[in-house]
Every structure is written in structure tokens, then in C-alpha cells.
């Protein structure tokens, strides 16, 4: 209820309260005595004990104090002494009203039990003149279960009676303007006038009366209307920061919206979660949500509901980031300082998104401070970072620039041998600008750059880079219609160089570039229909490989693979239709089309014959910009929601998606050498659809969200690698991959509490992803055409993420995660060949590495919160992998000096302490 108070105000109120408490104490009347002994009893039980001994009734917010424990050792002492004794150190206050019947327990604010002597003056006059029942008073802190009687029953037989009164601010006594006073059934409401007064006609009988006003605590009371009455309402101001208001409006989103499988995380939550080396890591936190997995600690690629890592559309302010990983893939390349929140669509993907099969990970950047210049700097084990922000034109436009860089080479010595003799350098930079031309026109500019260079235990250097920029224009036509126009370019490239052997020294580069234009319209027709529609168009230009010699001695033959080009376009429309109060349908259709464009030389294979090199019947050359091949088809996006009660809903959904660009990989983790390939006449697009069903329930006034979701998903024409596939610099890649059909299903349970001292979530998932490659066209059945699990198939997954806030300055976080070990291919036999002992590999992904279990702990310490100081600082100190368990990343067998040895490799084989320092200015 009172989170996020600026500490200075809280202190002020507290001191006021203490003063007032002293006042009350001195004006004691003779109060009953009581005796009780208890230790660490929940406050609810303690107060009940006192209630039983006295005539007092206690009023307090049960949910807010549910974790408070109190102790008392009292022998015949007064109630005020007893209360002071038990409430000491809890930060709670009490006040006893003049009737000596009611005790209000509050946090921080003290309930005033008396009002200024002239407060009711006008009402009294009114009462006398109209001779109605004397004014009743609503005020915060009273029991909302209590039914308040309004008016004396009159015999006139009139059904509706008039209730009139005023709404005032408790603190200042000023009238509150434009407060709404209403009942819901039937729907009758009025707004207070400039003087804070209102008149409302209500049917006789029992109602729930609501009073709401911006910046005030909502009031909800049971009333029993018997006759004309006047009613005076006192509202308490709500001192909250803006962020909390946002949360409260989102409270019921999870049950109210029609989408399934959507998870939203704000940056505050993300920063609380301890991660390795203490770098707040967006994707690692996303991976703690049910249904999201990674192959292990050396991989940030997400496997969402059985999807492969390339099936996620990773958007940062609409820019598609292809390889958002740093430092051998150990952590993600999004700077937490510029991120506001991340939203993951695992099932219901809005029609405006497309092009990837499994999910959309939508990362929204912050907007810079429009009033003042500000900044932050941080230093951790892995990176140091600097962020600057401020207005360009005050209140109109702002900017954020942020950068991170590493000095992490020293850490490499601490990693397994696999990283020995390695080097790593990386940085990322962000630029975010926005400008509001007027109320209806705002533009946003986003720039993103991440750059990695490393070598891994060899003389080969890897270098990869993401570079993205876009411009977005938001235009509001009127209250009901707005548009978003977006234009930009995404680029991902890598380069591998090897120079040790001068004769073979080479450099290999790859890049993919996409230019896009998106137009999106949102049209609120009426309370029943909201329409979204628009078009996306995306031009790909992909360089599959460029191989050049390095140095004068090199004999490496230059090989310039021709560019690939394609145009992906889509039109979409979706309607959110509120069929009844409780039933809402969100139906959308997206029609996508993919044109593979020349110039290109396409390999030809006869119909019905496996695509193998020996079956190739030559090539066909296509001219520039000629459409070589077109794929197209509809994508259906349907979600339906039925409210079962105010706090419970049932949702069902069906989604289908198409993917026209594929990542080809034969490594376990997403490697910087993985190439992307456009669909072409020989490689068809992937198609996936998903049925899902979910039940959502909120508890304790929407502070606890419970959900269970089940899904069944089909994946068509996913590309898995054939044995011994050569994927780089291959002009006939279709011969190296096998079209694979996948089936994924699962059930996800999630309990989430995002407010209160104790917050976090616990999720459990049971899920499977099974693949099968038995198409004759492949020419080779993977795993003999039998079903095999994908290498990220981890059926059981239990994750706890928690944070406990001891005070505004100190909180602790704790994670625990367990999952089934991932599948790997293990040898089924050994033999001697080529002078050494060799292994024979069995069914693909036929075995599993040992299960994964990890616990992490961290403490977040904020510097003092004095308003007037130059800088605010904070520390994060923690331990990753508390138990030091050697969680395996892989198990493998190697022939060493002719003998087979089995090894288990753990990336982090011990407890890893970390520390991070941040400063804001």
C-alpha cells in the first residue's frame, strides 16, 4: 500500500506521528488493562488476542502486514502500553478513536480520529433544515465489510432516494473536484463539482459504493440505503511514485487481456536477480520464466516452448538484434541502463509481429530525462559502463547515450581449460533520442551497436557485430486513431581470421543486412471494437561468405559467395472484440509473402530425388531483382478470454507463424560462426502453429498472480544438420541440412508476486520437444528416421526467483533452479581406427547429461536517500552458484594419445562471488 514513498516525506510524517502519539498518550482516559504473553506471533493473531480481552476492535490492512510478527509480555497493563510495546520496531502506528472502541493500525500515517471542530458545521445546519438522518462519514481505515446504514426507513414507497454530500481531502480538508462516486450494479455514478459536492439517486437496498479520485486511495464501502441521507467522504492522499501507479493499472492485466503466454519484466525486477559476474542480464532473467530455456551457461540463446534459438524475434525498440551475446555467449548484449522493460510473447504473438516461429522478445528502451541532465556509471567484474541522459529541448526532447566495455581478459584464466589462451574484447553502445513536435507528433530514434572480438584457445580470431538504427514517428489523428511509422536497418556480421600458417592464412566474413518499413495503425472504434492493422516490409541482403587470403604468402583462394536477396512483406489486421462484459475475442490475420530475388544461381534437383550433390542437374541463373521464388501464406492469431470471476479467467488461443530465414548450426550453443540462410527454391520456409489454453487467478487484491498454461505446438520444416555437415562456404547448403518436423508440448505453472516486501516468482514447467527427420527429399534420415529430442529438451524445470526488501536501502535476492539434464549424443561403442581408439556414436541426443541445479544469492545495498546530494550510489554483492555444484555443460569423449577418455565440462564449477558498484548523478 505504501511502497515507494520518498523517504524524506515518510520521515516527516513519522516524526509528526510520533508527536501526535505523545499527545494522545497524555490525554488518556482510564482504559481497560490486559495480560498476554506471546512471541513472534503474526500480528493478526496478536490483535485478535487483545480483542478477546477488551472491547476494542482493530482496523488494519491484513495483506500489508501479513508478514509482520510481534511479541508481548504483559501483565495487567493498559492497552496503549501494550500496543506501544508490540508495535515497537515494526514501523506501525496506532490510534484509538474517541469512542474508545476502534483502534486503527497503520503504517507511517496515523489515522486521525478527531476532526477539526468546525468540520461538520455546514452539514449540521443541513441536517437540521432537511431533517434527514445525520451525515455518515466514510474515511479510510474503516472496515469495508461493515455495512453503513443510510437514512431512516420511510413509508413513502418511493424506490429511489437522493444521497448528497461532499468529498474532501483528509489532510487539507479541501474539497476534491471530479471525484467519481458510483455504484456498479446498476451502473449509477456522478462526479463531484468544483466544490466537491455531489448528489446521487440510488435505489433502496444494499450497494457497494465506490469513490475514486486521482492521487487518492480508492474507497469501496458497503451501504444499505433506506432513505434520504447526506454523506461526507474523506479521502486519503496516496503518496506514490509514478511507477507504482503503472503497476497498479497492470494488476489485473494478466487475467484481463486476451493473450496467452505473455510475460513482462521491468528493469527493476531484472536488476534484482543475481546473475554470474553480477551483470544485470536481461536474457538470463527471461530464461527464468516458465517455458524459456537455454542449453547451458555458455549460451544466451533462448529456446522458447520447444523453439530453436533462431526462432525468436529479438527486438530492441523494433530493431532486430541477430546475436545479442557477449563474451562467448555467456551474457546478453543489452545494456540494462537503457532498458525499461522486456516483454516475451511465447504463445499469442500480436499480428503486427512475424518472421519468427517461436516467440517475440520485445525490449523497450527508456526515454531520457526531459527535465534535467543525469547519468550513471557502474563498475563490475566484467564491464564498466556509463550512461548520460537529459533534455535537448526541455520538456520536448531528450536523449540517452550509453556504453559498456570490458576488461575481462583476466577472468578467462578462471574459466575451464577450454578458455585458456583466449582473449575477449567487447563493447556495446546505445543512442536513444525522442522529440515531441506537438501533442500529436512524436519521433523516436534508436541506435544500437554491439561488437565482440575474441579468440578461443587457438590462433583463430572471431569478430562479430550487430548494428541497428531506426526512426519511429508516432502520429495521433484523434482520440481514437493513431499511427506508428517505422523505418530502419539491422545489420549483423562476423569475420573469422586465422594468420598463423602463412600459406593458409585467411579471413572469412559473413553478413546479413535488412532494411525495413513498418506502418501500424491503432483504431479504437468503440468500447466493443479496437482495430489494429498495418503493413511490414523487409528487404534482406545476405552475404553467405567471403573468403580471402591474408598476407602475401597466403595461397588461400578467394571465394566470394554471391549475395542473396529477398523481400518479406506482410499485411495484417486484428480486432479486439469485447463480445460481452466477460468474453473478449482477439482475432487477427497476417498474410506474409516472401520473394527470393535475383541475381542468383540456383542449384537444380529433379523432382522426387534426394537433394544430394550427386543428384544435382546443374544450375539456373536468374537476373538482378528477378523474382526467383515466392512463398506466401496466412498466419492466424486468435485469442479468446472468458472472465470466470473478477479475479479469474480462462483463455484459449491458436497462433500460426512463418519463418523465412534460418540459422544453420551444428554446435550446441549459438556460435559466432553460425550462418543464416534465406529460404530459396531448395529450402522452404518453416511453419509453426500452437494451440494453447490457460487458467489465470489473482489472489490478495491482485498482488499474487497464479497461472497454468498448456500448449501443443507443431513445427514444420525446421532445419537440423546432417552428420558431418559443412555449413560454411557451401554453395549447396540444401544438401547439408535435413527438413525436420517437430512436436512440442508442455504445461507451465507460475505463481508471481511483484509487490510487497517479499516478491518474486516460482515456476514449474513440464515440456518436451521431439524432432523427426524422415523425408525422402533429404536423402538421409537423421537418427534413422526415428523421433529424437532436440538438444534443449529439458522436461522438468523448476525455478524460484525471489527478493526480500528489508528496507528501502537493503534487499536480498535468492534464485534456485533445477532442470533435467539436456540430451546429448553419447558413444555406443569403441573401436580402433587410424592408430587410435575411436568412438561410435549412437542415437542422436539419446542420452542426457546430469541434472542441473543452482542457487544464487545477492544483496543490493543502496546508499542513503537524502534528496540533496550530488550522487546516489548502490552496491550489489553476491554469489553465483552458492553450492558450488559442478553443473555439466556437456559430456564428451575424446581420443587422447589413442585412448578414449570421457569428460564432463562445467562452465562454472564453483561458487562465484561478484560485486558491482553503480553511481547515479
Amino acid at each position, binding site marked *: 500500500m505504501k511502497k515507494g514513498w520518498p523517504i524524506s516525506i515518510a520521515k516527516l510524517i513519522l516524526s509528526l506521528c510520533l508527536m501526535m502519539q505523545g499527545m494522545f498518550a497524555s490525554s488518556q482516559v482510564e482504559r481497560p488493562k490486559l495480560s498476554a504473553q506471546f512471541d513472534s506471533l503474526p500480528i493478526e493473531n496478536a490483535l485478535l488476542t487483545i480483542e478477546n480481552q477488551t472491547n476494542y476492535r482493530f482496523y488494519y490492512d491484513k495483506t500489508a502486514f501479513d508478514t509482520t510478527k510481534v511479541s508481548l509480555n504483559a501483565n495487567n497493563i493498559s492497552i496503549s502500553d501494550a500496543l506501544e510495546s508490540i508495535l515497537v520496531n515494526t514501523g506501525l502506528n496506532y490510534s484509538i478513536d474517541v469512542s474508545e472502541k476502534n483502534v486503527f493500525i497503520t503504517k507511517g500515517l496515523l489515522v486521525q480520529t478527531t476532526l477539526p471542530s468546525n468540520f461538520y458545521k455546514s452539514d449540521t445546519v443541513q441536517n437540521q433544515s432537511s431533517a434527514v438522518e445525520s451525515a455518515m462519514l466514510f474515511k479510510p481505515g474503516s472496515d469495508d465489510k461493515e455495512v453503513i446504514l443510510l437514512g431512516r426507513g420511510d413509508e413513502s414507497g418511493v424506490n429511489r432516494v437522493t444521497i448528497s454530500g461532499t468529498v474532501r481531502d483528509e489532510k487539507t480538508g479541501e474539497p476534491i473536484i471530479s471525484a467519481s462516486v458510483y455504484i456498479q450494479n446498476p451502473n449509477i455514478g456522478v462526479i463531484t463539482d468544483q466544490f466537491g459536492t455531489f448528489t446521487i439517486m440510488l435505489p433502496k437496498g444494499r450497494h457497494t459504493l465506490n469513490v475514486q479520485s486521482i492521487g487518492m486511495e480508492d474507497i469501496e464501502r458497503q451501504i444499505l440505503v433506506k432513505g434520504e441521507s447526506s454523506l461526507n467522504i474523506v479521502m486519503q492522499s496516496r503518496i506514490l511514485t509514478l511507477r507504482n501507479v503503472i503497476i497498479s493499472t497492470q494488476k489485473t492485466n494478466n487475467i484481463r487481456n486476451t493473450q496467452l503466454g505473455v510475460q513482462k519484466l521491468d528493469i527493476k525486477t531484472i536488476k534484482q536477480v543475481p546473475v554470474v559476474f553480477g551483470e544485470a542480464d536481461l536474457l538470463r532473467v527471461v530464461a527464468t520464466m516458465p517455458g524459456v530455456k537455454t542449453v547451458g551457461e*555458455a549460451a544466451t540463446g533462448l529456446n522458447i516452448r520447444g523453439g530453436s534459438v533462431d526462432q525468436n524475434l529479438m527486438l530492441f525498440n523494433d530493431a532486430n538484434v541477430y546475436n545479442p551475446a557477449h563474451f562467448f555467449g555467456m551474457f546478453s548484449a543489452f545494456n540494462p541502463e537503457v532498458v525499461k522493460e522486456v516483454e516475451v510473447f511465447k504463445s499469442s504473438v500480436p499480428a503486427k509481429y512475424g518472421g519468427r516461429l517461436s516467440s517475440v522478445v520485445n525490449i523497450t528502451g527508456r526515454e531520457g530525462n526531459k527535465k534535467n541532465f543525469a547519468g550513471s556509471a557502474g563498475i563490475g567484474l566484467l564491464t564498466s559502463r556509463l550512461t548520460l541522459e537529459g533534455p535537448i529541448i526541455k520538456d520536448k526532447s531528450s536523449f540517452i547515450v550509453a556504453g559498456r566495455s570490458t576488461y575481462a581478459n583476466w577472468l578467462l584464466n578462471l574459466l*575451464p581449460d577450454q578458455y585458456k589462451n583466449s582473449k575477449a574484447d567487447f563493447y556495446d553502445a546505445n543512442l536513444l533520442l525522442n522529440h515531441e513536435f506537438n501533442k500529436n507528433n512524436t519521433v523516436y530514434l534508436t541506435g544500437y551497436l554491439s561488437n565482440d572480438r575474441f579468440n578461443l584457445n587457438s590462433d583463430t580470431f572471431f569478430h562479430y557485430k550487430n548494428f541497428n538504427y531506426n526512426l519511429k514517428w508516432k502520429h495521433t489523428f484523434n482520440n481514437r486513431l493513431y499511427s506508428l511509422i517505422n523505418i530502419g536497418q539491422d545489420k549483423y556480421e562476423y569475420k573469422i581470421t586465422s594468420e598463423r600458417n602463412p600459406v*593458409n592464412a585467411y579471413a572469412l566474413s559473413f553478413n546479413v543486412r535488412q532494411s525495413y518499413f513498418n506502418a501500424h495503425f491503432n483504431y479504437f472504434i468503440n468500447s466493443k471494437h479496437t482495430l489494429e492493422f498495418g503493413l511490414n516490409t523487409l528487404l534482406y541482403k545476405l552475404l553467405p561468405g567471403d573468403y580471402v587470403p591474408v598476407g602475401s604468402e597466403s595461397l588461400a*583462394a578467394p571465394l566470394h559467395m554471391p549475395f542473396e536477396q529477398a523481400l518479406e512483406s506482410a499485411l495484417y489486421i486484428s480486432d479486439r472484440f469485447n463480445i460481452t462484459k466477460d468474453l473478449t475475442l482477439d482475432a487477427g490475420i497476417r498474410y506474409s509473402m516472401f520473394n527470393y530475388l535475383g541475381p542468383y544461381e540456383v542449384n537444380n534437383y529433379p523432382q522426387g530425388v534426394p537433394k544430394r550433390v550427386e543428384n544435382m542437374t546443374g544450375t539456373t541463373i536468374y537476373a538482378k531483382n528477378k523474382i526467383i521464388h515466392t512463398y506466401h501464406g496466412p498466419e492466424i492469431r486468435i485469442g479468446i478470454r472468458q472472465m470466470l470471476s473478477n479475479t479469474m479467467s480462462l483463455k484459449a488461443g491458436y497462433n500460426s507463424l512463418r519463418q523465412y530465414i534460418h540459422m544453420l548450426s551444428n554446435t*550446441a550453443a549459438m556460435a559466432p560462426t553460425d550462418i543464416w540462410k534465406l529460404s530459396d527454391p531448395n529450402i522452404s520456409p518453416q511453419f509453426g502453429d500452437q494451440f494453447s489454453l490457460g487458467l489465470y487467478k489473482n489472489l490478495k487484491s491482485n498482488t499474487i498472480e497464479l497461472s497454468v498454461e498448456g500448449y501443443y505446438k507443431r513445427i514444420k520444416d525446421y532445419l537440423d544438420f546432417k552428420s558431418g555437415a559443412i555449413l560454411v562456404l557451401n554453395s549447396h547448403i540444401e544438401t547439408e541440412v535435413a527438413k525436420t518436423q517437430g512436436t512440442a508440448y508442455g504445461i507451465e505453472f507460475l505463481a508471481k508476486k511483484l509487490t510487497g516486501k517479499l516478491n518474486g516468482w516460482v515456476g514449474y514447467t513440464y515440456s518436451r520437444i521431439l524432432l523427426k527427420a524422415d523425408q525422402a527429399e533429404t536423402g538421409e534420415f537423421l537418427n534413422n528416421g526415428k523421433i529424437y529430442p532436440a538438444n534443449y529438451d529439458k522436461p522438468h524445470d523448476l525455478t524460484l526467483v525471489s527478493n526480500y526488501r528489508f528496507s528501502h536501502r537493503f534487499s536480498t535476492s535468492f534464485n534456485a533452479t533445477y532442470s533435467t539434464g539436456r540430451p546429448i549424443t553419447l558413444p555406443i561403442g*569403441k573401436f580402433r581406427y587410424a*592408430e587410435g581408439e575411436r568412438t*561410435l556414436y549412437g542415437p542422436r541426443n539419446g542420452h542426457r547429461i546430469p541434472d542441473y541445479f543452482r542457487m544464487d544469492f545477492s544483496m543490493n545495498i543502496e546508499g542513503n536517500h537524502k534528496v540533496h546530494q550530488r550522487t546516489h550510489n548502490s552496491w550489489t554483492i553476491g554469489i553465483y552458484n552458492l553450492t558450488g555444484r559442478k553443473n555439466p555443460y556437456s559430456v564428451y*569423449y575424446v581420443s587422447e594419445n589413442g585412448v578414449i577418455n570421457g569428460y564432463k565440462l562445467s562452465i562454472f564449477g564453483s561458487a*562465484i562471488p561478484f560485486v558491482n558498484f553503480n553511481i547515479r548523478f
Partner: protein
Amino acid sequence: MKRVLPIIAFLPVLFAGCKEMYDPGIINPETGYLVVEGFINSGSEPTSISLSRTTKLTENIFSKPELNASVTVEGDDNKSFSLVSTSPGIYSSAQPLTLNTAVQYRLKINTANGNEYVSAYSSIKHSPVIDSITWKRENGGVQIYVNNHDDNPNEKSYYRWTFQEIWEIRSTYLSNLKYETNTSGNPVRVIYKYPDQSPDYSMYYCWQNSRSANILLGSTERLSQNVIYLPITHIQQGSIKLGVLYSIEIKQHALSKNAYDFYLQMKKNTEQLGSIFDPQPSDLRGNITCTSNPGEIVIGHVEVNKEENKRIFIYNSQVPGWGYSRFCDIVSIANNERSIIENLQYMPIAPEEFNLDGSIKSFSASAGTCVDCQTRGSNIKPSFWPN
């Protein structure tokens, strides 16, 4: 920062070894698939094929030879050559095969359990010779390279190499003594080994050898010229191999693209695993199929091939500052039964003091490995050895 520094300081201590030996325990499925190794030799040596069976990972068996099979080389001209078992699992032709360049050949195996296996047909392939073996000092050690070229510039070449190293070992001390034993075999005193008191060179000069254990492959696929210059092996500085004289013989097989891919996959599956971005292992497909039980796993890639050899020598004098040394201390032992028994870890080198009668009173001795090189190699001199 005061609080931070101690934490960072003890970080390295907390990182433990992250790679450890692993035994999955229960993984022991049925195995015993046929493994065929060798090539149909188009050169001047007989053809030799080795047949064995895969064994369980947990089985402590060097190799399980396949016995009583009948092995023939068949040409598509219907001519065939039988191979006969010369030792367990080894099937060889008595004479070099006379193959016709216009004919394609395959291997046919009939195992004792009644199954028939055939390899794909292949023909005699052009096999470039090894131009040279070169070496240079790298990181103090010696890096050995193989060089060759193929004049046919349009042809991409694929190669596999194996090598055998031989190096001369010399004992630190040359001995002319030996122990004289009593009837129960215990040494009682030292005497001259030979009546003329000459030293025993059979314990002084020895030769040790080792073979390549890794699969060495190379191709000119990505090169503009059909030229190979590839590292074969590295000798660490100070290694005994170059203590006196070292020799390496490299054998080269020119492969088809398919055979190259087979060996590459085997290499990936068994040698290039465990790093973060290495490809995942997968099944291995050769060119041999079981005709009587299609789908049965058979391991092996057999084609018509020829072996090209080349040998070089490197003398210790060519690698200045090599720094091979062996610590060998000398002790003095009285020539009587008791002190000899007390110092049995030593071997006699030469007399030190003499009794008045000229017999040996005491003698110098050193550790066995310092006196008798046979503890570290064989004293049979290879026929090609220049020294």
C-alpha cells in the same frame, strides 16, 4: 573500494577445475559392429585389410579382431583377388595386386555369421608424391611440415597423413661391468662384462619410436594452388626425441572427397570435442554397406589407394640450445654382496678402486635408466639409421 579488493583477491582460489573425468555408468548398449580398415593397394605392396568389432566403452579390450571371414577384392571386370588371414583380424594378399586403371574395384567381406558386406566401387587414383618434409623452430621446439603439390590445378586434392617417428637414445654412462649372480640368481659381485674389458654398446645405443595417434588431414579445397604446406607434428623443446638424432617418416594417402569427409567426421567425433563451439558428434558413415542386413551399422571407408612415403633426419647439432638433459648421479658401491643388495636400484658403470689382486674393490654405479637404454627403447638399430 576497500571492501571489494579482498573479494577479488580470493576469486581465483574459488574457481576450481571445471573439467573432470566422467563415467556415465549405465551406458552400455549392445554393440559389436563390423569395423573395416585398410585400402586396396594400387602400389607395390600387398593389400592388407583389418577387420574388427566395436566393443563396449567399459570393456577393457585393445581390439576385438574379426576371425574366419572371407575377404576378396572384386573388380567390375569380374576379376577378383582373395585375401587370406595372416594374423587375427588381418587379411592380406600374398603379392601386390595387379590392378587395371580402367577397372573399378571394391572390397567384399563374408563374415563367419553369414553376413555379406561390400564397399562402394572405386578406381585407381592419381597420387601426388610428398615433395618434402620441412621443419622450423617454433616456440623453442621443432614444428614439422609436409609439403606437396599437384600439377593438375583444376583438381582439388584431399590427403591423409600418418607418420612414424624414431629417435636415437644414448645412455648417460657407458658400462663395462655386469653383476655376477649366484645359483639362486642374486647378484654377489661385479665383474667385467667382456674379458677384454670393453664396454657394452648394446646398453648404450637404443632407438625409440612412436606413431601418429591423431587423424591428420589436409585439402586444397580452399586454396588457389594445388599446394600443401601443413603442420604435421610438434616436438617440444628439450624433448628426448632430438637428444641425439631424430627421424620422421610421413606416409601420405590421396583420398577421394568422400573418404576425406569420413576421416574428418571421425576426427570431429573423437578428437575435436569439448570446446564450447565445437560441432556436436554425430554418426559416422563410410562406404561399406551390409547387403544381407541393410541398415546395419558398418564402420569403414575402403578405396583404391597408394601410399607415398618420405623420411627426414634431424640431428641434435641442427637445433642449437635444445637442452635435453637427464639427471644421473653416480654412487660408489663396495664390491660385496651386502652393499650390492642394498643398492639394487643402481647399475654398475666402471671400477673405481681395485684390490691388491687387481680385482674390483668398489665401482661406480648409476640409476638403471642412465646406464641401460633398453629401459627406454630397443637396442636394435633400424636398417636405415645413418649413424
